[in-house]
Structure formats: C-alpha cells, structure tokens
C-alpha cells in the first residue's frame, strides 16, 4: 500500500470521514455519559448479571444452530442447481431486511399457542412461546441469513476445482466435504458465525414480540437496557457500554480470523 497511487478524489475522502464520524460520535457520547462512580455497581446488579448471562447463553446457542443449519443451506445454494433456486435464496435472506418485530409476529403465529405448529407441540408437552427457547428461536431466525450469505459467498469464491480433484482421487462426497470443502472455507464459516453471534446478541424486536421480557428467562441484555432506560438511565448507559464492548470484541475477533487465514 505504501506510496501507491490511490486515484481517489479528495472530496470522496471528506464525505467518507463525515460518515465515519456519524458512526463514531454516538459511541463516544455513550462513553462520556457513563457515571463511572456507579458503573461497577450498576453492571453487577442482579438483573444486569442475569440479563448478560442470558444474552451470552442464548446467543451462543443460536450461533451453534446457525452453523448447524446454515452451513448445509449455504452448500445447497452455492453448489447445487434446482428449479426456483433464486426465489428460495431471496426468501431465505428475507429476515435480513424484515423488521424484527414482523419476524417476532411470524414466529408467534408459527410456534405460539395458537400458532401453526404450536398446537401440535403443546400436545407433545412443548410450550415454546415466552420461554428461553423462544429467545433462541428469535435470535436464530434473524441471525441465520448472515451465516448463509457470508458462507455462500466464500464457497462461490473458492470454486469447485479442488472438490473435483478430490473426487477423481477416489474420495466419496462426505470425505470431500470433511477433508476438502469445509477446511477450505473454514475462515468463511468462522467469520459467518461471528456475524451471526453479533446479530443474535443485539436482537430486540423479535425477542420482545415472541418471547416477552421475563427476568432470567427471556429478558436479554438489549431488553434489560430498554427497560432500565425508563427507571434508571444511568444503568441503561452502563449496560449499553458493556454491549458495545462485547460487540467491539466480536468484530476484532472476526477481523483477526479473516486477516490471519484469508487468502
């Protein structure tokens, strides 16, 4: 990079700087607004700790679900061709652009007590709505497309040449997947999982609609922050900073993985 001519007009850089400020100043505003004398107490209060723990647990679980289902979905979209594939891809990626509240309502009418599957599930003794499982479902619903999208891109970039060679060397499809395809797109899976985790951690609308806000059961950190804002703005700010810190950590991790093993 050093010394090479970029050819970008200065005014583009000026606009870019304005955009960057727009993203960074609000973060600075939170840091400046934190009441540092009470920070420790606010963050470690019983409801705060419960919310943080619940957030990490549910986000971790939904990330695992995203990997479990997202990796096969990405392979199916990138490596096979079937009728109506474009439509399927568009629908699968819909939660990316859907307002989370709408996602929550959709989940409610699927898994809720009066929902499409809720009735049958209730007979089996499973009641999902307004439980921790509902939080995980809501987060997975909004986070899954992130993993599918990023991994599908990685798979398309990687191409199928290595897989073809592996097959002609006598490797069965499952062996090719395990020993060639997955290792080759490993960095893509990890960065997709990190993105999904970040999206799950920040989930609010679908969770509130589908799972409600029960301390220790469904009240994740974003919900706790929203609730505290009414009663104790200082606690809301302190918890926001915690969420920012976790997010920064996650982004840094994803970046490191991408730099370290990317092509």
């Amino acid at each position, binding site marked *: 990079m050093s010394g090479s001519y970029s050819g970008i007009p200065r005014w583009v850089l000026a606009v870019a700087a304005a955009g960057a400020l727009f993203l960074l100043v609000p973060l600075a505003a939170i840091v400046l607004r934190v009441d540092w004398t009470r920070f420790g107490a606010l963050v470690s209060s019983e409801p705060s700790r419960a919310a943080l723990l619940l957030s990490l647990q549910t986000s971790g679980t939904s990330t695992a679900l995203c990997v479990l289902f997202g990796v096969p979905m990405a392979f199916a979209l990138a490596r096979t061709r079937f009728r109506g594939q474009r439509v399927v891809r568009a629908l699968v990626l819909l939660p990316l652009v859907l307002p989370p509240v709408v996602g929550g309502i959709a989940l409610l009418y699927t898994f809720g007590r009066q929902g499409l599957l809720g009735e049958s599930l209730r007979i089996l003794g499973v009641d999902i709505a307004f439980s921790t499982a509902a939080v995980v479902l809501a987060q997975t619903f909004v986070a899954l497309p992130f993993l599918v999208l990023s991994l599908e891109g990685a798979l398309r970039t990687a191409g199928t*040449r*290595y897989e*073809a*060679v*592996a*097959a*002609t*060397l*006598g*490797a*069965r*499809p499952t*062996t*090719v997947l395990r*020993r*060639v395809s997955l*290792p*080759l797109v*490993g960095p893509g899976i990890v960065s997709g999982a990190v993105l999904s985790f970040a999206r799950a951690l920040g989930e609010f609308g679908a969770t509130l609609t589908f799972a409600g806000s029960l301390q220790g059961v469904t009240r994740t950190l974003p919900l706790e922050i929203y609730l505290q804002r009414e009663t104790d703005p200082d606690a809301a700010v302190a918890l926001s900073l915690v969420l920012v810190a976790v997010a920064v950590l996650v982004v840094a991790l994803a970046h490191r993985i991408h730099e370290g093993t990317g092509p």
Partner: protein
Amino acid sequence: MNLVASAKIPTRNIDLRLSLSAGETVAVMGPNGAGKSTLLAVLAGLIRPDHGSASLNGKTLYDDGAWLPPHARGIALLAQDALLFPHLSVLENVAFGPRSAGASRSAARQAANRWLQEVDAADLAGHRPSRLSGGQAQRVAVARALAAEPALLLLDEPLAALDISVAPVLRRTLRRVLEGRSAIIVTHDVVDALLLADRVVIIDGGRIVEDGPTRSVLERPRSRFAAGLAGVNLLTGTTAAGGLHTSTGLQLAALTEEDLPPGKDAAAVFSPRAVAVHRLRPTGSPRNVFSVTVTDLEQHGPRTTVRAGHLSAEITTASAADLDLLPGTGMYFSVKSAEVTVYLL
C-alpha cells in the same frame, strides 16, 4: 480393450468415440474449444453426456441409464494447475488418494512417500503447497494422482503452465511414469505427443478427425490441424558434445539451454519450416547439413513439403519448382543449430 467410450453432447457440439488398449498412452490434440477438455471431464465423471456409453476394464462408467460417480471410477485427473489442497502438507496431499480408498494413516503415508520418491520429490514431503514452485507443485500433483492407483490417468495440458526451463525435466518424469500405464494426455505440444504417447487423436469441432500411431499421424497428416503440427522432424539417438548423434549416424548440432550429459538417450526436434533445401552442398552458417535423397513431394498451395526418409522440409512451391525436385533426386537439407531442440528421453 481397456477403455471404450462414446459421448454425445449436442449443446457443446460434442460427438466423440474413443478406445484405449491397456497400457496405452494416447495424446489428444486439436484447436482450442475443440472439445479436448470436455472429453476428459466426461471420462472423469465431472460432466454427464446426453448420450453414449463408456466402460473401463469391463466396468460401466455410464450408459443411457447408469452413471458411476467420479470417486468410484478409478480415473484420476491431472490438470494444468497442480491444485494441491492448500491446507494439507505435500505428504498429506499425496496420501489423500490412499486414505480415501480406505488405507490406514501409516499405510497411506508409506505409499505417499514411495510415490514422492518415484517423481523425485521426496524432499518436499513436509512442505506446504504454498511454498512450492510451479514445477515442484506439478511434480507433487503427479505423485498424488499416481498414488490413487488409477486404472486410467487423464492429463490436461500438464506442462502448459510451467516455465520453459522446467517443462523438459517434468516431461522426462512423465515419460518414465506413463510407461506401460493407460493414460490420455491433452496437449498442444507436439513434443509431448512424440515423447509421451503411443498414439495421437486429433479432435476438431467436437469430432475425432484423425487417430493413429503418433509418428504416422505427424508424418502423414490427413486433417488440417495435424498438417499444422505435421512433419515435425524427430531424430533419436544419444547426446554428444553440442548436440545429438543419431541412430542413423548423423551428427546434429543443437543449441541447448542446459549442458546435456553425453551418451544419454535423447531426441532432437525441429520444424520442417526451419529446413532449407539445396542442390549443391551449402557452405554457410547452418551447421547441420545432410545429404539426402528426395522420396516424396506434397504440395499444399503455395507451400510444398519435401520428404527424404524421416526428414522433411517445407519450402515454397516456387522454389521447389526452381530446384526441379523429383523423387529420387539427391539434395542437401540444412538447418541452423538454433532451430534444433534436444530432449533427454
């Protein structure tokens, strides 16, 4: 018959029919887009033809109903790029085939080491593919393909991506490992066809237009494409200081990049266009002058091929007329040593 195959793909304008005896190496040549790589992909199982059938050693690869997936065919494909798996070491790359066939880890490693030795790459075993040069990587790819112990080996321009200084060395290795092995090699280089293959097949427009022993196809081409390659002069013998001592007793001077060890089996190749024809013994710069008797003349419009035994010269029809050439005439052929390439066999 080892391989019997036919394939029709109307959308790609492919209609091919090919057979191969056990242990035979066939060179497939033809213009770009003629269908050479498609043929290999069909045999390897990467493309499914619309019609046709194929069997290898009595095992059906495909016909109108059945289709054997690539991993069950016993056909390895070596491409222009080595395509070594970047996340595996050289040894693990070569062990990939034996492992996939169900060999234990240690047996697979043993086989991998043996095949690496076979292609003179044993010292690369612990390396990562990203640290290899193009020639080293292709050498390892050859070992990896052979380690899978394929019943048929397909090579798609295996030397095309290599430096001109590296290709002859790997060609020598290929010549050694292809000996007695059933293989199909797609190539643009007539030297590959001459040195590696027993038979050459010319494909043009998705059809086989010529099929025969390498020498006779190149010496007596019937198709336009083969005529372009044709009549290449190939002399075999042993290396001598500054060139080749041919088995027919000729001394041939050549410019070689590397110093060739003397007394080794070698072949010299030069184009008929590089050969000048003289009525009297010339006394000029060309260091190779042969006294010959014209055996045959063949006119292609403005150009005429003059044959004298195994040698041929291509000159303008006008000069052929001026020289008053007839079969039986005694003539001199001359060729500059810079036009002669010598390959170790």
